[in-house]
C-alpha cells in the first residue's frame, strides 16, 4: 500500500502525536480490512428477484442526463432516464434511480448501493482499474463555451493565461490541467460555471457537449467556441465481478442501437450526431473500446495541491476568524450597551445568521448578490461568509462571558470614577474573555472545518482539493486519510495553544 510513505512522512513531522496517529491508522486499517468485498454471483438474479433495476446517478443539476422535470419535479427525466427505462424493459423489470453525488458514484457502486452507475461516466484507464465498463452507449465530446462578445478565444488553444471553469473529476478537467498555463477553476455543479462565465468571473468553460447543449446553447450571453474536442465514451460502470450483468447489458445496448431506439432517445434530447456511428463497432466486438483517453496529469503533479489546499484553508479560517472576533465584539457591545435601535439590530443580525444555514448564506453572497449587481470574488465571499456567520456565534459567547462577570465588578469600577466604556474595556471584558475562551477555541476549530463549505463557491481549499483528486484518481481511501490527517495536524496545535492560553489566564486563580 502506497499511503505508508505519506504516513511515515507525517509521523516524522508530528513526532509527539505519534500515539494519535497510530490509533488513527489502526482504525483506518480495520475499516479497510473489514470493508465488505462486494457481491457474489448473480447480480442479474438479484435484480429479477427484487423486481426493479437500481441505477446510480446524480440528479442534482444533472440536465440533460438525469434531472427533475421542471414541470413536475417529483419525476426524473433525461436521456439516461430513457435509456435506463429501455434497459430495464429488456430485463423485464422497472428502473429506479438511486441518488448519489456524482463525485462518489464509483465508491457507492463498490459499496453495493445500486446495481450499476450510469451518469455520463467517461471510460478512462484509471476507472477501468476499479470498475467494469459496459459497451459505450454515447460518444461525447468536450465543448468550449465563451461569452458572446468574446472574440479572443476561438479554441482551446487560446486558453493560456485565461480562467477556465469545468466540472470536478471530468475528462475536461484533465484536458485543462494537462495543458498547463490555464487557470483552472473546478466546480461541483454544472450550472454555476456558466453563470460565472456570463458575469465575467471566468473566461471560458469546457464541459461535456450534452451539458453545453442543454445549459449554454440557449443562453443568449454565451456561445460555442470552436469545434468539439477530446472525444470520449460514456459507459455504464459495474462492479468488477458482475461479468454476467455486463454481458447482458452489452447485448441490450447492441439491440437498442440496432433497433434505432438509442438514436430515437438521443434525437429526442438533441444529442444525436454523426459521432455516434462509431458505437456500432463496439457493439460488434465488445471489449475492444479503443479509448480516446484525454491526457491525464500524473498524480505526483497533484500532490503539492493538497498542501496548497491546506494553505488556502488556513488563510480563509484565520482571516474569517479575525473578522468573526471583531464583528462579534461589536455586535455584543451594540447589543448590551448601545440602546435602541442598535441593540435590536444586533439581536436581529445574530438571530438571522444563527438561524439560517451557512451554506445558504454562502450561496446568496456568491451566486445571489450578482443578481443585484454586486459580484464578489470567491476569496472575498468566503471571508465574508464565514466571518459574518461566526460573528453571530462569537457575539453570543462574549455576551455569556460578560453576563457571567459579577455585577459588583461593574459597580466597583464605576465607583472609582470610571466611565462605563472604560469599565467594560478594563474590568469586564478581560474577565469575560477568560470565561469565553474555551468556547472561542471550539468555534475556531469548528470554523476551521466549516471552511470546507466554501468549496461550493469555487474556492479550492483542502476538502475541495481532496474531492477533486480523489474523483480523478479514484483513491478516496488513501487521500481521505491523508486529508483528514492534514486537518488534524492543523487543528490540534490550535487546541494546545488554547489550553496554554487558558492556563496563563488562570494564574490569578492559584
Amino acid at each position, binding site marked *: 500500500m502506497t499511503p505508508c510513505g505519506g504516513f511515515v512522512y507525517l509521523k516524522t513531522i508530528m513526532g509527539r502525536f505519534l500515539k494519535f496517529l497510530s490509533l488513527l491508522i489502526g482504525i483506518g486499517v480495520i475499516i479497510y480490512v473489514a470493508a465488505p468485498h462486494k457481491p457474489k454471483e448473480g447480480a442479474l438474479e438479484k435484480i429479477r428477484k427484487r423486481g426493479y433495476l437500481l441505477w446510480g446517478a446524480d440528479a442534482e443539476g444533472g440536465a440533460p442526463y438525469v434531472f427533475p422535470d421542471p414541470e413536475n419535479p417529483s419525476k426524473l427525466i433525461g436521456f439516461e432516464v430513457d435509456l435506463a427505462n429501455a434497459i430495464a424493459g429488456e430485463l423485464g423489470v422497472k428502473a429506479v434511480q438511486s441518488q448519489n453525488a456524482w463525485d462518489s458514484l464509483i465508491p457507492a457502486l463498490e459499496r453495493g448501493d445500486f446495481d450499476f452507475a450510469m451518469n455520463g461516466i467517461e471510460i478512462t484507464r484509471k476507472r477501468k482499474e476499479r470498475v467494469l465498463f459496459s459497451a459505450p452507449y454515447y460518444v461525447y465530446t468536450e465543448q468550449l463555451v465563451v461569452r458572446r462578445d468574446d472574440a479572443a478565444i476561438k479554441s482551446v488553444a487560446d486558453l493560456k493565461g485565461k480562467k477556465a471553469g469545468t466540472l470536478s473529476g471530468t475528462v475536461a478537467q484533465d484536458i485543462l490541467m494537462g495543458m498547463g498555463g490555464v487557470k483552472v477553476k473546478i466546480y461541483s455543479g454544472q450550472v454555476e460555471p456558466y453563470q460565472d462565465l456570463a458575469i465575467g468571473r471566468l473566461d471560458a468553460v469546457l464541459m461535456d457537449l450534452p451539458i453545453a447543449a442543454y445549459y449554454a446553447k440557449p443562453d443568449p450571453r454565451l456561445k460555442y467556441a470552436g469545434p468539439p474536442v477530446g472525444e470520449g465514451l460514456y459507459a455504464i460502470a459495474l462492479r468488477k465481478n458482475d461479468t454476467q450483468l455486463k454481458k447482458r447489458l452489452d447485448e441490450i445496448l447492441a439491440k437498442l442501437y440496432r433497433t434505432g431506439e438509442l438514436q430515437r432517445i438521443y434525437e429526442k434530447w438533441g444529442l444525436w450526431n454523426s459521432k455516434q456511428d462509431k458505437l456500432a463497432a463496439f457493439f460488434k466486438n465488445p471489449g475492444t473500446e479503443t479509448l480516446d483517453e484525454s491526457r491525464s496529469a500524473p498524480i505526483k503533479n497533484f500532490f503539492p495541491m493538497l498542501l496548497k489546499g491546506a494553505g488556502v484553508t488556513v488563510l480563509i479560517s484565520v482571516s474569517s476568524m479575525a473578522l468573526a472576533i471583531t464583528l462579534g465584539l461589536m455586535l455584543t457591545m451594540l447589543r448590551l450597551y448601545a440602546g435602541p435601535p442598535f441593540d435590536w439590530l444586533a439581536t436581529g443580525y445574530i438571530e438571522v445568521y444563527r438561524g439560517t444555514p451557512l451554506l445558504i448564506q454562502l450561496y446568496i453572497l456568491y451566486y445571489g448578490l450578482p443578481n443585484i449587481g454586486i459580484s464578489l470574488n470567491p476569496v472575498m465571499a468566503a471571508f465574508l461568509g464565514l466571518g459574518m456567520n461566526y460573528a453571530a456565534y462569537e457575539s453570543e459567547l462574549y455576551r455569556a462571558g460578560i453576563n457571567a462577570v459579577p455585577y459588583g465588578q461593574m*459597580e466597583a469600577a464605576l*465607583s472609582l470614577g470610571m466611565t462605563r466604556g472604560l469599565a467594560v474595556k478594563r474590568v469586564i471584558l478581560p474577565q469575560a474573555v477568560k470565561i469565553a475562551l474555551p468556547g472561542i477555541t471550539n468555534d475556531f476549530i469548528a470554523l476551521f472545518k466549516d471552511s470546507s463549505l466554501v468549496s461550493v463557491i469555487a474556492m479550492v481549499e483542502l476538502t475541495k482539493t481532496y474531492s477533486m483528486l480523489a474523483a480523478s484518481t479514484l483513491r478516496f481511501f488513501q487521500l481521505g486519510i491523508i486529508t483528514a490527517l492534514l486537518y488534524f495536524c492543523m487543528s490540534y496545535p490550535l487546541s494546545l495553544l488554547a489550553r496554554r492560553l487558558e492556563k496563563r489566564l488562570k494564574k490569578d486563580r492559584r
Partner: protein
Amino acid sequence: MITVRGLHKSYGVAPLFEGLSFQVERGEAVVLIGPSGSGKSTILRCINGLETFDRGEITVAGIELHSINTKRPSREDAERIRKVRLKLGMVFQQFNLFPHMTVLQNVTEAPVRVLGMGRTDAEAEARGFLRQINLEGKADSYPAQLSGGEQQRVAIARALAMRPEAMLFDEPTSSLDPEMAGEVLSVIRRLVAEGMTTMIATHEMGFAREAAGRVIVFDKGAIIETGPPSQIFTSPKVPRTREFLNRVLGRF
C-alpha cells in the same frame, strides 16, 4: 458635605424612602445602623449614583444629583454622577477587587486611567497606601491569594488612592470572621481619626459605639432616631431603637 433632601424611592409599588432627609458635615463619621432591609445600604448606593431614586435631591460637595431617567441617563447626567463618584470612595461588602489584576494594579488602575496620573507616581503612592494597611508585601499577589480581611483592606486602599473627599462603607465587615473584621475596622478607625468624612453602614455595634461621631438608626426606610453613640446606646428615645439594640446586642 453630603445632603439628602426629601428623597423618595420605591421598588415597583413597594415604597422604601418617603421623604428621607439628613446631612453629613465635613470630617464627620456617621454610622448607619438598623435591621436588614431598613435602607441603610440603599441610601449609600443612592448617594454614589449606583441606585436611582424617584424624587428629591442629593448634594455631594456642591454637586447636585436629582432623579433621572433610570434606563438611559443622559450624557450630562452620567457625567454628573461620575463627578460625584470622584469625590467619594466606596467600599463594598463583597470587596469587588478586580480578580485579573494584582493588588498593585487594583490600586493604581483608576488613578492612572481616570485621573491620568503617571504610572510611576501612581505606583509609588499605591505602595504608600499598602504600607499603611500592612500589605506592602502583597503588592504582586492576585486577590484570590489574599484572605478576606486582606482583600477588604486592599479595597479601602484602592478607594483612597483616588483621593476622595468622603468614604462610604457598605457593610464592610459583614462577610468577614471577627478577627479579620477587626483588622478592617482598625483601618477605618484610623481614617476616622485622621478626619476623613465617613458614612458606614454596619452591624458592628461595638465599633459604632466607640468610633462614630453620630449614629443614625434606620427602620423601614425611615430615620427613626439620630444622635451621638453615647446617647443612642445608653438611653435611646425611641422604643423601636431599643428593641433593635436589644435584639442585636442580645440583652434584655
